[in-house]
């Protein structure tokens, strides 16, 4: 049974269900659970739900320690950028401890953080820094684009025996969508095809999925039939689904809210250029944020971000330059 839930409620539902299911799941972080009225506190008590100081290194480091000791912490980090002060724990501790131990320990934990709040939050709170995490063996990275995926990927993240960065998009926070009730798991490493089409493949994540679908709708009016693929997790990355789509369409546009050289789209482009080369009938084109810190003022902010028009333009570009098949 599905009903409509906002994206953020879907995430919370997953955490609640997993906490009810498994009492080793913990949930803590800043500015949560500060009163007895907190729904998580009421349901699970202060042992498992705690407010922490502004100490990300300790928060994440403690998650590593608690995970080594048999728990499954979910750390509420608010913004992905706040993880930067604790980056060692994220990329050089959590994902390496199992390996360095020769498989003797596991480090199951979820780092929950929002990103991409390009709505006047200016230079330090608007980043889309997920690509920093994709090349770290041992770490997984989920980027849900819909409320259903938000729920299903969070549940999967909590059950996963590895450290997972669960990055939800701030601009989707209140976005409603159908969400299955009860236990609902979305597997990692399986892309979703959001729209099928035969002319061009558009790969997009998070907030960009909606922009890609809008572009696809606009293109449909011109008779261009775009397929929209949402990888859902970028580590593991479902390269096969992307390649299959490109094999069908021969054309690909990659959309990413990050800057060009800090994007997941570059990584996907490189995979396509190597493993899908023979399918390609045009250049692998990226539509990313321009190479600037995100400015505060609205016209400048809009200027640097990918949008529907830029995607449409890029699709026309790859199709226009494609050899006649």
């Amino acid at each position: 049974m599905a009903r409509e839930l906002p994206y953020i409620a879907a995430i919370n539902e997953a955490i609640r269900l997993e906490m009810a299911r498994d009492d080793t799941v913990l949930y803590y972080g800043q500015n949560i659970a500060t009163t007895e009225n907190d729904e998580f506190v009421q349901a699970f008590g202060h042992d498992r739900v705690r407010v922490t100081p502004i100490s990300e290194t300790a928060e994440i480091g403690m998650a590593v320690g608690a995970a080594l000791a048999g728990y499954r912490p979910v750390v509420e980090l608010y913004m992905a950028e706040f993880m930067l002060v604790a980056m060692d724990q994220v990329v050089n501790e959590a994902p390496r401890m199992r390996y360095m131990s020769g498989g003797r320990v596991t480090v199951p934990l979820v780092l929950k953080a929002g990103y991409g709040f390009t709505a006047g939050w200016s230079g330090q709170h608007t980043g889309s820094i997920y690509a920093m995490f994709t090349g770290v063996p041992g770490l997984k990275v989920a980027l849900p684009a819909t409320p259903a995926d938000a729920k299903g990927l969070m549940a999967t993240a909590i059950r996963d025996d590895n450290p997972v960065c669960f990055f939800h998009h701030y601009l989707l926070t209140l976005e409603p969508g159908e969400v299955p009730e009860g236990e609902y798991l979305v597997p990692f490493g399986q892309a979703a095809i959001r729209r099928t089409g035969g002319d061009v493949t558009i790969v997009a994540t998070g907030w960009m999925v909606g922009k890609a679908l809008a572009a696809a709708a606009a293109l449909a009016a011109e008779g261009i039939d775009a397929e929209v693929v949402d990888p859902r997790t970028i580590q593991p990355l479902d390269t096969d689904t992307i390649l299959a789509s490109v094999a069908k369409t021969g054309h690909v546009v990659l959309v990413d809210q990050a800057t060009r050289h800090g994007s997941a789209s570059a990584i996907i482009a490189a995979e396509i250029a190597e493993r899908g080369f023979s399918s390609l009938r045009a250049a692998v084109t990226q539509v990313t944020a321009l190479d600037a810190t995100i400015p505060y003022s609205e016209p400048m902010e809009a200027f640097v971000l990918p949008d529907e028009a830029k995607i449409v333009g890029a699709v026309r570009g790859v199709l226009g330059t494609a050899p006649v098949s």
Partner: protein
Amino acid sequence: MTELDNAKLVWMYRHMLRIREFEERVKRSFEEHPGVIRGHTHLADGAEASIVGSLAAIQQGDQILTTYRCHGYPLVLGTDPKAIMAEIYGRRDGLCGGYGGSMHLCDPGRGFLGTSGIVGQGIPQATGAAYAAQIRGQGQVVLGFFGDGATKQGAFSESLNIASLWKLPIVFVLENNSYNVVTRVEQEDANAAAGEPLSVKAKAFSMPGVTVDGGDPVRVHDTVADAVARARSGAGPTLVESLVYRLSAHGNLIAPPGVPLHFPEHEAVEVFGNLAEFEAAKRNDPVPRFRGRLVTDGVLAPDQADQIGAQVREEMQAAVDFALASPYPAADAALNYVYA
């Protein structure tokens, strides 16, 4: 109160009022001009005495760094409120051309080197400016401002250790407003939980630590002035804990676009249901308190105070008008200043 003459006391009052009025205008902008302020904005109302008292203790050439809660300081340092408001409104004539916004004011010519929006991260930056001042050898002092919550960020401890070890000319001004967003300081600080002041943290760095009533600009001034003198003499840093109470919520609503932004109720009321605490803080509001005292002490006549009030209101109305009239930056200006 010895050191401060009447003119300086009136100067302090004026600046406290200017900060209050400016912040009120920012807050009202959410209702009066919906949409002009984007993102997240943090106000200094309640901290005016602490800000003005601290900045009254430094001199030309000294420098400061602050957090995202940064509107008050440049107002005291002489930055035009028009430029500040225009920045908060994202306009071309903004102090930083609309690039930074409310959280990232800076005016290096007046000694305001900048802010960090990331908790605690401005503390080492201030320490580095103090290292520069020490090498430069011209007697400059740096004030680093930050909140109670920030003391739980590793950057705080790392910086205070080095500042003490190197005897850097810096004063660490910890504005303890008892809250980190919706978390009370006793919920996140081991000293506070144990009933100790946060200035006890200084002991971990063999550094003097002192706690002062941040609602009293004269006491703040005297305390910071002592610390500044110590720093300027080469004796090293001091941790000054200034007890303030912010009179507005942490910031405007954190909400995705489409949801109207505004300042919610203070967390004491909204989250903790503690109206008494909030009412007490309002009764203890440093701005009318200082006015009352100056009037009682005969430093300021009531009509002079009113006149200052009128001037300040006019000044801040002009700031709003200016900001509203200022054009937006050109969209493609976004590609400027990425690299020097």
